[in-house]
């Protein structure tokens, strides 16, 4: 068998050959299907037919085929692409793998992802960088649940070029009618989910029919062979070049005081020296001075290129900003509707803050309870309180400062984002922005005449948020009450928020699940923040078991105003006091999610004040707290 048939030009005129091949374009695509659909075989076949397999690889492939293969004495192309040792033993691929091959016209990068349901995250990852998707169908089985699933995900990720590869045609005798039925089935489904067009091709990966060239076995088929089609579709980056100019600033290049360049990868459009640009989110305008490059300045650059540009005016511009065409700038907003694909083993906690990274912007973001999740098998929308691994949900997201963005449908660079868990740093979700919520665009904070400083000055005090945290029965409320009495006696204006005045009113609708606890604390934080804006010294006494929520509350008030006060009482002691008899009930299983018993308590790592209740009375504790607050009290303005 000949494995590698090099172009005659390579031997006769290498210089011409290299010139020709210098100017290939690059297409990235994803193959969707399971091992059973012959996906690995198809990729192996593409590598083989495009002469990417060397003799030593072929020799080891032949040896492996005899030992591990599923194709009898014939070559099992699937073995070429199944990577990791553990997977080879299981006979499945479990992750995203990237393969490379090239033809005379194009270089290709193939994302190979598994078709199993539990690996939605891998497919979404592979699809995020693809210009085109090859959806594989076993001709003997037709359109299956997984076909719909793959198509939905590819469409969700915005892939505009879909190829329906009806594989294993050799096993149904190259039956034209059976092929036509499958295509008709698929067309009906595709239309129902909004796929405007797709390209069907009947193939056999195993035999090579309609892969590199049109097959004699299917003279009735008048479309292109798969490789011909892959060589001719438009790549997304070329389409992006006709859009308005946008470049997220990645890095400010400042080698000395005389040079300030802005480095980034152009997301869309093109740019030339002299072009008018607007810096977002500040909105300042200026013109491009130079496109600086090693070896000499450039005259122009477009989407897909990494550049360094300088501006005519010295205006503020840093990482995270977007430099855009002055007359067609993108929007900025802080509340969005978005679709999330959850990728982590730990569920989404609505109300908790995550890092959100979009292009070069990283902000803190809170995700609300999902409006619905999509069952990717039936595409039915069902309600849910959270998102679990591989769930796809539509929800609202609020960020702590405005994001420069574009709807994902218009720009993957300015509409696609990831969520990062602040504690574990794991990438927990991929998200696609749909649109900004109108309230974010229209509601502007009233710049009131009476500032928070004015409120505080009138009361002759600095606002404070004293956040008491600790186990149930640790003595939080007792000590907080004493502190408030002492403050009152000193003529300070204060207010105590605790379970009794909050759980019965504002948070009456909340229970004790993790999600409800987080929402409870979020609301308390918001109310406390408003009260500090009014100049008050606010005391809160809640178990507040999770570090992330306490940090969220801390982030709501200006630096220096937040005091985390850890009422540190050992569980045995709190349980032995059991003032309200709650521990007894929790031990008996009558109360679910009870902190310390059936739900965790995360002690503060670095509280402003820690009170060890085994060493002092509540009165002494309150005394000490007031001293500490007063001691570092800065003078009233």
């Amino acid at each position: 068998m000949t494995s590698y048939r090099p172009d005659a030009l390579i031997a006769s005129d290498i210089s011409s050959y290299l010139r020709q091949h210098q100017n290939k374009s690059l297409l990235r695509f994803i193959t969707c299907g399971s091992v059973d659909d012959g996906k690995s075989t198809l990729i192996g076949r593409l590598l083989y037919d495009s002469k990417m397999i060397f003799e030593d690889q072929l020799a080891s492939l032949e040896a492996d085929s005899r030992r591990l293969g599923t194709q009898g004495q014939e070559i099992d192309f699937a073995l070429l692409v199944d990577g990791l040792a553990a997977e080879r033993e299981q006979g499945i691929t479990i992750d995203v793998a990237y393969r490379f091959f090239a033809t005379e016209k194009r270089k290709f990068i193939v994302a190979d992802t598994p078709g199993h349901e539990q690996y939605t995250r891998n497919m979404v990852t592979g699809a995020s960088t693809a210009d085109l998707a090859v959806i594989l169908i076993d001709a003997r089985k037709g359109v299956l649940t997984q076909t719909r699933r793959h198509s939905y995900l590819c469409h969700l990720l915005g892939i505009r070029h879909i190829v329906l590869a009806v594989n294993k045609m050799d096993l149904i005798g190259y039956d034209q009618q059976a092929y036509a039925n499958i295509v008709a089935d698929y067309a009906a489904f595709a239309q129902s989910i909004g796929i405007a067009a797709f390209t069907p091709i009947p193939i056999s990966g195993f035999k090579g029919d309609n892969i590199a060239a049109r097959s004699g076995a299917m003279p009735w088929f008048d479309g292109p062979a798969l490789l011909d089609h892959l060589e001719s579709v438009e790549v997304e980056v070329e389409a992006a070049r006709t859009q308005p100019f946008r470049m997220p600033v990645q890095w400010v290049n400042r080698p000395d005081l005389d040079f300030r360049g802005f480095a980034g990868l152009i997301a869309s459009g093109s740019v030339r020296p002299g072009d008018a640009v607007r810096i977002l989110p500040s909105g300042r305008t200026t013109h491009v001075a130079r496109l600086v490059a090693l070896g000499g300045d450039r005259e122009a650059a477009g989407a897909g290129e990494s550049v360094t540009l300088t501006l005519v005016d010295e205006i503020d511009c840093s990482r995270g900003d977007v430099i855009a065409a002055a007359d067609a700038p993108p929007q900025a907003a802080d509340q969005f509707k978005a679709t999330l694909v959850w990728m982590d083993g730990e569920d989404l906690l609505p109300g908790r803050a995550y890092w959100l990274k979009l292009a070069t912007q990283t902000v803190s973001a809170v995700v609300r309870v999902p409006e619905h999740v999509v069952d990717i098998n039936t595409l039915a929308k069902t309600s849910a309180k959270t998102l679990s691994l591989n769930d796809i949900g539509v929800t609202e997201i609020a960020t702590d400062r405005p994001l420069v963005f574009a709807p994902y449908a218009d720009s993957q660079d300015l509409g696609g984002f990831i969520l990062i868990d602040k504690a574990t740093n794991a990438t927990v979700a991929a998200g696609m922005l749909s649109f900004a919520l109108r309230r974010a665009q229209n509601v502007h904070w009233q710049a009131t005449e009476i500032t928070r400083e004015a409120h505080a000055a009138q009361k002759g005090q600095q606002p404070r948020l004293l956040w008491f945290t600790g186990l149930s029965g640790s003595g939080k409320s007792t000590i907080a009450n004493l502190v408030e009495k002492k403050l009152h006696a000193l003529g300070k204006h204060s207010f105590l928020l605790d379970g009794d005045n909050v759980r019965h009113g504002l948070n009456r609708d909340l229970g004790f699940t993790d999600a409800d606890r987080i929402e409870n604390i979020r609301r308390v934080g918001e109310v406390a923040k408003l009260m500090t804006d009014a100049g008050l010294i606010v005391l809160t006494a809640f178990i507040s078991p999770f570090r992330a929520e306490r940090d969220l509350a801390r982030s709501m008030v200006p630096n220096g105003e937040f005091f985390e006060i850890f009422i540190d009482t050992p569980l045995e002691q709190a349980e032995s006091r059991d003032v309200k008899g709650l521990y007894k009930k929790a031990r008996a299983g009558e109360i679910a999610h009870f902190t310390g018993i059936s739900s965790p308590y995360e002690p503060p790592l670095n509280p402003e004040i820690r009170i060890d209740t085994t060493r002092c009375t509540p009165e002494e504790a309150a005394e000490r707290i007031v001293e500490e607050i007063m001691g570092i009290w800065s003078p009233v303005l």
Partner: protein
Amino acid sequence: MLQSPAVPAHSASSLPALTHLERLEAESIHILREVVAEAERPVMLYSVGKDSAVMLHLARKAFYPAPPPFPLLHVDTTWKFQAMYALRDRAAQAAGMDLIVHQNPDALAKGINPFDHGGLHTDLWKTEGLKQALDQYGFDAAFGGARRDEEKSRAKERVFSFRTASHRWDPKNQRPELWRVYNARKNKGESIRVFPLSNWTELDIWQYILAEQIEIVPLYFAAPRPTVERDGMLLMVDDARFRLRPGEAPVERSVRFRTLGCYPLTGAVESEAATLEQVIQEMLLTTTSERQGRAIDHDQAASMEKKKQEGYF
């Protein structure tokens, strides 16, 4: 405010279509900059091979007119080809970068060498040496020149690949990488290996070297060199430390190298290809894949994956 009414900035571009090399270059530069923007102490691992040469060139482009804002680190085994040491020092200087050379003091003290110590040689000099250097200088992100097309297990590795505090790689616990949004946040003690050349193939590397006229070690080009044939490999006698076996005598052959490492472990191929174009021509006409010349892969089928889990780059 000045505005030119005639031509809106977003008129259809008349730019030539992007070639695959331009797109690969843009992606690599984006990755390099992203690490510099987000990591605290990045470093570039520089092995003096052709992939390192391309990576260094991309770094110079990414940060021009500033020099790349990180040092080069060469984890040395003392057994590299002399020509590699010469280019290493020159290239670092040309780029205006600091060069850190680390030689594992344990391996040095024990006199570990490829003749007596087999697999231990790679293990102590390279795997352990790399860990030592990263720990010693506190680097939290290290660029490496590995490509996904080199070997099956590499095909699945991320661009940003996280290592535990003990430098282990867990292939089952990789972060998903979407679009070009990279999550560079790490936990205490973790470090990142970053592979800006992930999506390049061997041919891309050669074509880019040709297009950008990047200097590479002359050993890649055929020249008469003293060699001995041993265990099916052609080895070059690069210095007096080479131990000849009974009956062996260096023979001058026209050879070149497809990959470069420790000279007693790197097989040459007989060749007359003395120019870049001729080397590419030979590569395209050849019938064996690139890594065959490296002894390290022959141990076992999944050897690279195993080595990576242990901390080999």
